[in-house]
């Protein structure tokens, strides 16, 4: 199952014929109901983040955001994202290339396996790594003897985030590559280009918007991942707390203003993600790229 993120939008022609449209009153009521739903579930949650973040003024806001533990959390999140996104980008490209350019037995199984992390609860995803590397896990005693820390440390956080975000780039690229076909690549190879040349000069430019969008989705999810990281982090303040975990700890300590201040950073990032998504779709529709 692939999520059809609405492609290039065709604008509805103004003035549908009367017989194909609803009476104005019905239209108004339906629109109002839809907008109330949007207000209750999207706009108000968005608004309350900023309202609560600034409830005690800008001074408190900047103190909460630039406080040392918050900065450490930001550093950990950035570090994790910088490790996770390039790895999953490579994986996404390789998986999409294998799946959409070639035929082989067991392809459906492979696609299912690529998608698997999406159908597993983040908590269970994190748990997998606790079972492997936790104190009573499979490799726990072995790691303990050698004083190697995976769970409750950076490697565990990276592994859990990798697992949860691994399908994102592949999922963006597979349908894109399939819809684009490989005629240009075949032509390039037939004309004597090497494999690497073909890939860099033909394939990458063809899929660059899909690639870009996959990276954005993967980054957004890495930065925001909560459940899986929560299991493997151990919540050691300043050491293993990513930004979302920092928000959770502040909130549970009733430091609501600080929690919402840090949360507002994540919210702004989410809004930037949505704007970038809109821009990419717009560019893609202009260029007639299959996305």
């Amino acid at each position, binding site marked *: 199952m692939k*999520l059809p993120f609405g492609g290039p939008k*065709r604008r*509805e022609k103004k003035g549908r014929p009367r*017989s*194909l*449209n609803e009476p104005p009153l019905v239209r108004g009521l339906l*629109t109002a109901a*839809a907008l109330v*739903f949007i207000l*209750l*579930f*999207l706009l108000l*949650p968005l608004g*309350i*983040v900023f309202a609560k973040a600034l409830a005690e003024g800008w001074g408190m806001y900047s103190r909460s955001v630039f406080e040392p533990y918050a900065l450490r959390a930001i550093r950990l999140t950035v570090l994790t994202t910088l490790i996770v996104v390039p790895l999953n980008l*490579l994986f996404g*490209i*390789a*998986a999409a290339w294998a799946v959409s*350019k*070639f035929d082989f037995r067991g392809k459906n199984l*492979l696609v299912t396996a*690529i998608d*698997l*992390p999406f159908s597993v*609860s*983040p908590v*269970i995803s994190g*748990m*997998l*790594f*606790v*079972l*492997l590397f*936790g104190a009573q*896990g*499979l490799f726990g005693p072995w790691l303990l003897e050698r004083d190697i820390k995976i769970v409750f440390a950076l490697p565990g956080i990276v592994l859990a985030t990798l*697992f949860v975000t*691994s399908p994102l780039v592949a999922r963006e690229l597979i349908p894109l590559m399939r819809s684009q076909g*490989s005629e240009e*690549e*075949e032509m390039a*190879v037939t004309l004597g280009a090497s*494999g690497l040349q073909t*890939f860099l000069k033909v394939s990458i430019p063809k899929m660059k918007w899909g690639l870009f969008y996959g990276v954005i989705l993967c980054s957004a999810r890495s930065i925001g991942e*909560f*459940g899986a990281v*929560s*299991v493997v982090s151990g919540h050691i303040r300043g050491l293993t707390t990513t930004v979302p975990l920092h*928000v*959770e700890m502040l*909130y549970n300590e009733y430091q609501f203003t600080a929690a*919402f201040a840090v949360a507002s950073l*994540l*919210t702004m990032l*989410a809004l930037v*993600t*949505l*704007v970038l*998504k809109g821009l990419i779709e717009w560019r893609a529709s202009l260029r007639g790229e299959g996305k």
Partner: protein
Amino acid sequence: MSGRRGVLPGFGLAMGFTLWYLGLLLLIPVGALVLKAATVDPEKFAATITSSRTLAAFRLSFGAALVAACINGVFGLLLAWVLERYDFPLKRLVDGLVDLPFALPTAVAGIALTTLYAGNGWVGRHLAVLGIEVAYTPLGVVAALTFVGLPFVVRTVQPVLRDLPAAIEEASASLGAGRLQTFFRLIFPELLPAAVTGFTLAFARGLGEYGSVIFISGNMPMKTEITPLLIMIKLEEYDYAGATAIALVFLAISFAILLVINALSLRSAHPVRRG
């Protein structure tokens, strides 16, 4: 090189890297889960699964995810319809905003919804007057899951609605059918398979959801404790066997339900032939 593979290079490299990566990241951890489950004492396994606390968590997780997916089914169809068919100010902005639950970290959604729907919150205050409590009740779990599942039905139905040939509606109108009749007899059956797909995705997402729920649910055992949280608690108590048992059964039931929904929706799908 076999004929099927064509002239393109890189199959070995791409496939090799993909399998190596999936093996390390997916196969070994999942293997550890299965191995762990196999070594759990069967009596302990059964006792954990049938304990009233676990059963209550299962009931809440599946029930709340189902209710939230139904809400999203109805409002998702409505939103897709309004966004595709009608014009109103800032429509593009609203359309873009529908993806917010995909982009907003779940923990942020959790604290925002809790503050909003708590008894003294912007919305909760008014609901309290009506005697409705949302935060720290199962209703709160439903609200959080409605938020995280909101984009799915909208985004699966929108493209189908956009590509629906105007001809079938014209034919229906010229044969004397009213709008309501046209909608329920013609348009709705066309949208149904996409809506079911969206419903399934929202349901699946809701089952596993953790971050947005744990703040608003209040996490009272037997009452508002979802299954992922119970797994988390078992892990924190170093009860790996208990956590594994619950996780495995939870995954098995989830996959079984999703398979059934998929099978049913395949059978019911009978789209009108497009010219």
